[in-house]
């Protein structure tokens, strides 16, 4: 075990865990932030997507020891009360079915729209391709990303 101080959702946060513990389990087990989901553990499904300095990363394969000063943002810190344009667009399009993958989808979309404010359909599909939705809400996700792009 070792003590780490991380910059999480705008707050300096201390955790005492084994250095190879992935950020995903630090968030879920030690900090009770469960919006970041476990889906595969091998960075294939995107359910665990968080932002590290505004870049979308897979928390399931990112050991806590590899994060130093970088700013970590999880779905819980993306906005106050779900008011980020991507979250609002998700609600407007009633995207979710089971809902399990959607926080990861939202985090990927939010990071993507920072880089590309006015994406084409193909660019959206490519950017979102690492996030699996087992319920198949892909066309709604695409529509929501376009709405968010318009409203941000």
């Amino acid at each position, binding site marked *: 075990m070792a003590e780490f101080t991380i910059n999480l959702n705008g707050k300096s946060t201390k955790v005492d865990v084994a250095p190879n513990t992935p950020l995903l389990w630090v968030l879920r087990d030690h900090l009770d932030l469960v919006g970041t989901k476990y889906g595969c553990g*091998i960075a294939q499904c995107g359910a665990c997507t968080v932002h590290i300095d505004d870049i979308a990363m897979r928390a399931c394969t990112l050991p806590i020891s590899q994060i130093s000063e970088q700013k970590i943002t999880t779905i819980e810190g993306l906005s106050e009360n779900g008011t980020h344009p991507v979250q609002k667009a998700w609600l407007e399009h009633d995207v979710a*079915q089971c809902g*399990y993958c959607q926080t990861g989808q939202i985090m990927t979309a939010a990071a993507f729209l920072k880089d590309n404010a006015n994406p084409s359909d193909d660019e959206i599909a490519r950017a979102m391709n690492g996030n699996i939705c087992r319920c198949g809400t*892909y066309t709604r996700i695409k529509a929501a990303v376009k709405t968010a792009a318009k409203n941000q």
Partner: protein
Amino acid sequence: MSTIKTHYNRRSFLKISAASGGGMLLGFSFLAGCKADVVAEQIKTKALPKNWFDMNAFLKIGENGLVTILSPNPEIGQNVKTSMPMLIAEELDVNWEDVVVEQAGFDKNKYERQVAGGSQSIRHGWTSLRTAGATARRMLLEAAAQKLEVPVDELRTENGIISHKNSDKTISYGEVASVASQIEIPEEVQLKDPKDFKIIGQGIKNVDGQKIVTGQPLFGLDYKRDGMLIAMIEHPPAFGMKLKSVDDSKAKTMSGIKGVYTIDTSSLSEQRPTIFAFSEVVAVVGNSTWEVLQAKKALNIEWEKANTLEDSATHSQEMDKFLANKNIEAKRKDGNPSKAFKDASKIIERVYTAPFLAHNTLEPMNFFADVSSEKADLVGPIQTPQWASGMVADALGMDVENVSIDMTRQGGGFGRRLYGHFVVEAALISKAAQSPIKLIYTREDDMSYGVYRPAYKVKYRAAINDKNEMTAFHVSGVGAHGGPVWENRFPAGAVEHYLAEDQSIETVVSTGAWRAPKSNFIAGAEQAFLDEVAEAIGKDPIDFRLELFEKAKANPVGEENDYDAERYAGVLKMVREKSGWDNQKSGVHRGVAAYYCHNSYVAQVVDIIEKNGKPAIQKVWSAVDCGIVVNPEGAKNQIEGGLIDGIGHAMYSAMSFKDGVPQQKNFNTYNLIRHMDAPMEIETHFVDNGIDPTGLGEPGLPPVMGALANALYKATGKRFYDQPFAQNKELLG
């Protein structure tokens, strides 16, 4: 307006005395929303009430008129947590903005059929849930009549307000809720005429939407309780193997590990061996997920062969042997098929195949259990809480009355969570570890310990006479633990000479229901075969089917035909019109299919274009007849998801076995459809016919597999018979 006897569903109206001791606090538990402020966020119109008055098992009303509706059935993404409460709210006659929805726990004394399966929740709940709302409304009216001192039949309701016809007297539901909750349950109530519906038919958004997009704890994997430990299992690495010995000397001493336990699940495997494959698993229990994962890897387990270790290739050969069998007992026979085939001027024969599939709910199997000698307290994602509670009681040797199950929101179901061996495992681990635990499967555990969709093969033959008419139809299917044939479905009833056969091979691989069981294979095969027959006859594929439905309607063959030909033809006509089928566009390759299952009819057209030298799905059109559409937005979402699921599995997914070992264990080797493969556009239409509603969780999936195969043929000139189609390299983008 229709009058309904309330004893129709008497058990649902066990009256709980009003909350005299200060009422129930909303937000008191995880399942009610975790945090009162999160619940409060949902409420747009009113503050939290001080008291809740129970009207019946489905709803309680606060003194300020806020209504809590308990949604009885498991929510797996089919949106019943929104649509079932809509039925209650409609007849209660309240403003939807004043409604808060909670997931009800499992309670067989209060609720009927708390199951997520067979697309039946809305169909079964249609009368009983509306009756629950109407009964409470009647009790509120009677209470208002007492308070206002007017006859009850002079009162009417609107949006939670009761008003007197002949005066300006009004009173709100909240003001009479306390008195109403003490009133005798009426013996009969009247239900609204569908033309007066205000909530049913509206696109009401997912009641958990805000919590989903903000990452609030909702799912089983998110559940936490004080003192709870994490548990994981190791199961035999191959179907046909069992535990020999466990060396846990290293694992037990690792950081954060409480213990390693051998868990006897033979009560499951002995009773239902085709579903529950393993009689023992090894459990590791510890403080945190990562620590348990490390200890799980450090276990040194010896497994031994207990049965045949099967390969996918031998499954396939075995099924071929069955299909070649000439002496199969017919499941249905009309006319004289053998003579019709002998007299045919042309016979078309084709074989279609599909592999085993894993369910792959994105939230892997998991469950919380806290077991003591007196009771078992269980929380998590399960589609069949009643079955699971019985299995837990059996395994623990405990009275089922002492087993309680609460359902969380569920990160997908697709049939996987019908089979609650993981609930039993959680209970047994909690008992062994003498601690509350949450059992978590890794993705690898989940995918390699499946209750899989069986592999199937089906052979079709059609006889065509010299007048270019289809005179005979022969379907012969085979599958693992049961074949795929529904002998009374179309085209049974529409063909003079008809023969249906179905056979089963044995396997030690566990199998079970997977979204739209059997239909998830046979629909695509049948609809692709009919496309070939239409082509051979020289008819438009929609015209060809419509002529068969005309025959089934005017002069049906046999009496057991399991479909309504007019409704079936109706969705085909609708999809023809909406998709502009008769005005084919250059560069767009189109395929059509229609199927009836789970009491609903769906016809689909798939449009394929060429993109970067490969076929790409530009658009899918659906026409759906599920009777009254309760929630149009949710209904569309189900059809969209169903067809993407169907396209995905027909194109990309397969589970194979070698020496009993599942060859795909995670999403690096098991392919699921992703954003770039999804249709660029989807357009869905519903038939408006006022018939009582049927389900939508499954019917959107089966036909699209056929429409896709038929469109791929138009695009490539090649017929595809073996799923997943993308094993043909030319189809991979």
